[in-house]
């Protein structure tokens, strides 16, 4: 009864008094203890979790009305500042940082009575798509290929957020997505991962990577849970200057699964001979389901797809190098003692940052440096206009776009190191939605011949998350993906 809980199920069990929040929490804490091999958690906040669970139980025994998330054990990517709980961004430079404030996103969850189990491993400062760049070591994907014991990556950067939900170490989790960091790991682990519209969710108190692209969002077992979490974390926040003024919506209660008369676009630029056959197969199957369920499929064109990735690899490192200039050893985090101020900056940053972070800071510094700013950063922002314009044109005729989430499935952790540009190609299907600020979701579709999950992506126009969730629910209910990894780690 206590395993593979969704938010909906947990809430039902609690409100029907079938089980206490404390029992549920203790069960998850035990599972986390038994899962060290997966390396999902950087910090387990067991005492705080038990306290929160007891408070939920008190509310229930007082017959107070409880919300859907009251007493539900979640865990957060270690990028969200949590008051009194270590927040590292998986970096050595923040390995001693205990915030004295709470990010808006996690505060919204706290207000709903969420039980926070702890903080999840990720790529350092969310830079990566393998979770291998973490100072705390790689996260291991709970999934394995059939007949092969090799450890696989969970994807990244929200690798811990995905692996922890897939291994049922928490009911659901929060991640962040700058170029695919929620959707790609969700796809690699058979889960639902949602990146909201840019501006829908406050960025305040979330460790910044690329501020014009970053959005927080849920990784969950079901579309319903994604709707509940999105509803909880979104809304205007006057502490974030790019927070949308749009009214909050009731995504969960408005959820319906009809796709009748919706027009779904399939971009011809995403079709490629390089796409693995099995991903192509599920993509075709998805198109068939959508048609059978009453949607109309339309071939569309997003002509600037191929310039999205290079534009992203200018904008993201540029904003990162600027954002990460705050880590100088003065006010918080690591300090390496030196005689002069400049030497202290240099030694602190050199010891505190890992290789991928240094690489991106260097690229960002280069594209922002005197004489190159217009040629690179402004140029990339112009490309962003072209990409956004592509989507604007398409959304005049269609309600959503349907594509694969990733060009591959989970691969071995010990895969031979490839050129950084090769690694960046992991993000090819996910990056355009970040540049255009559009909401996008990855939903599990099936397993490839090796038994590894494959996810498909839906993208809608800005602030059309309800449509996105509705179509996702339709696909979810039709496909009925119920596979889970075999538990080899406990």
């Amino acid at each position: 009864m206590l395993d593979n809980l969704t938010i909906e199920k947990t809430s039902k069990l609690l409100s029907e008094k079938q089980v206490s929040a404390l029992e549920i929490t203790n069960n998850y804490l035990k599972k986390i203890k038994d899962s060290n091999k997966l390396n999902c958690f950087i910090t387990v906040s067991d005492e705080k979790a038990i306290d929160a669970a007891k408070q939920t139980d008190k509310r229930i025994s007082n017959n107070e009305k409880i919300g859907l998330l009251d007493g539900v054990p979640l865990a957060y990517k270690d990028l969200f500042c949590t008051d009194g709980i270590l927040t590292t961004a998986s970096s050595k430079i923040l390995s001693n940082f205990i915030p004295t404030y709470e990010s808006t996103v996690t505060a919204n969850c706290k207000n709903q009575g969420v039980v926070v189990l702890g903080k999840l491993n990720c790529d350092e400062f969310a830079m990566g798509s393998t979770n291998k760049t973490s100072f705390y070591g790689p996260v291991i994907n709970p999934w394995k290929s059939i007949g092969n014991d090799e450890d696989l990556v969970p994807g990244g950067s929200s690798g811990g957020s995905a692996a922890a939900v897939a291994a049922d170490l928490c009911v659901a989790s929060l991640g962040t997505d700058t170029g695919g960091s929620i959707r790609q790991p969700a796809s690699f682990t058979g889960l639902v991962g949602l990146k909201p519209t840019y501006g829908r969710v406050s960025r305040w108190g979330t460790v910044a990577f690329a501020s014009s692209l970053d959005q927080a969002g849920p990784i969950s077992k079901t579309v319903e849970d994604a709707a509940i979490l999105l509803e909880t974390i979104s809304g205007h926040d006057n502490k974030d200057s790019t927070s949308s003024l749009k009214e909050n919506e009731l995504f969960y209660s408005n959820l319906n699964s009809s796709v009748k008369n919706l027009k779904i676009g399939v971009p011809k630029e995403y079709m490629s001979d390089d796409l693995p056959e099995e991903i192509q197969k599920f993509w075709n199957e998805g198109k068939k389901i959508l048609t059978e369920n009453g949607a109309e499929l339309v071939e569309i064109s997003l002509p600037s797809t191929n310039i999205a990735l290079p534009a992203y690899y200018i904008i993201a490192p540029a904003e990162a190098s600027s954002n990460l200039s705050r880590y100088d050893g003065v006010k918080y985090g690591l300090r390496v003692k030196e005689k002069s101020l400049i030497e202290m900056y240099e030694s602190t940053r050199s010891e505190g940052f890992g290789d991928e972070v240094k690489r991106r800071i260097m690229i960002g510094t280069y594209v922002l440096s005197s004489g190159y700013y217009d040629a690179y950063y402004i140029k990339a922002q112009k490309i962003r206009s072209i990409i956004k314009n592509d989507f604007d044109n398409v959304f005049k005729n269609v309600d959503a776009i349907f594509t694969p989430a990733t060009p591959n499935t989970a691969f071995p952790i010990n895969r031979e190191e490839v050129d950084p540009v090769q690694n960046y190609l992991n993000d090819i299907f996910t990056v355009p939605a970040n540049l255009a600020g559009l909401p996008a979701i990855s939903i599990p579709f099936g397993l490839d011949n090796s038994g590894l999950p494959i996810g498909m992506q839906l993208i809608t126009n800005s602030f059309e998350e309800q449509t996105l969730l509705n179509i996702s629910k339709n696909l979810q209910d039709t496909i009925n993906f119920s596979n889970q990894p075999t538990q080899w780690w406990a």
Partner: protein
Amino acid sequence: MEFDKNSTLKLAKLARLSLNDEQLNSLEKDLTSIVSFIDQLKEINTDKIDPTSNSLNQDLILREDIAENSLSNEDLLKNVPESELGFFVVPKVLE
């Protein structure tokens, strides 16, 4: 753009990073490869296009500049590597 030791060192200086020879070597290679990847944008004509700084179709939101109680001095100094008399301490800048 081919990065060599000098151009990589210059960039590291700007980024306030000190790098050893091994890191410099591998960064020279990586930077050359990444810059050649992003340089493909040079072929795209963007003369008549306005830049988009973020995708949200909304003016930046400003608030009144009013002093409020947020973080206390004590809270602000909780994570400081070194402090004295309620201030951040850094190595001497002026002799």
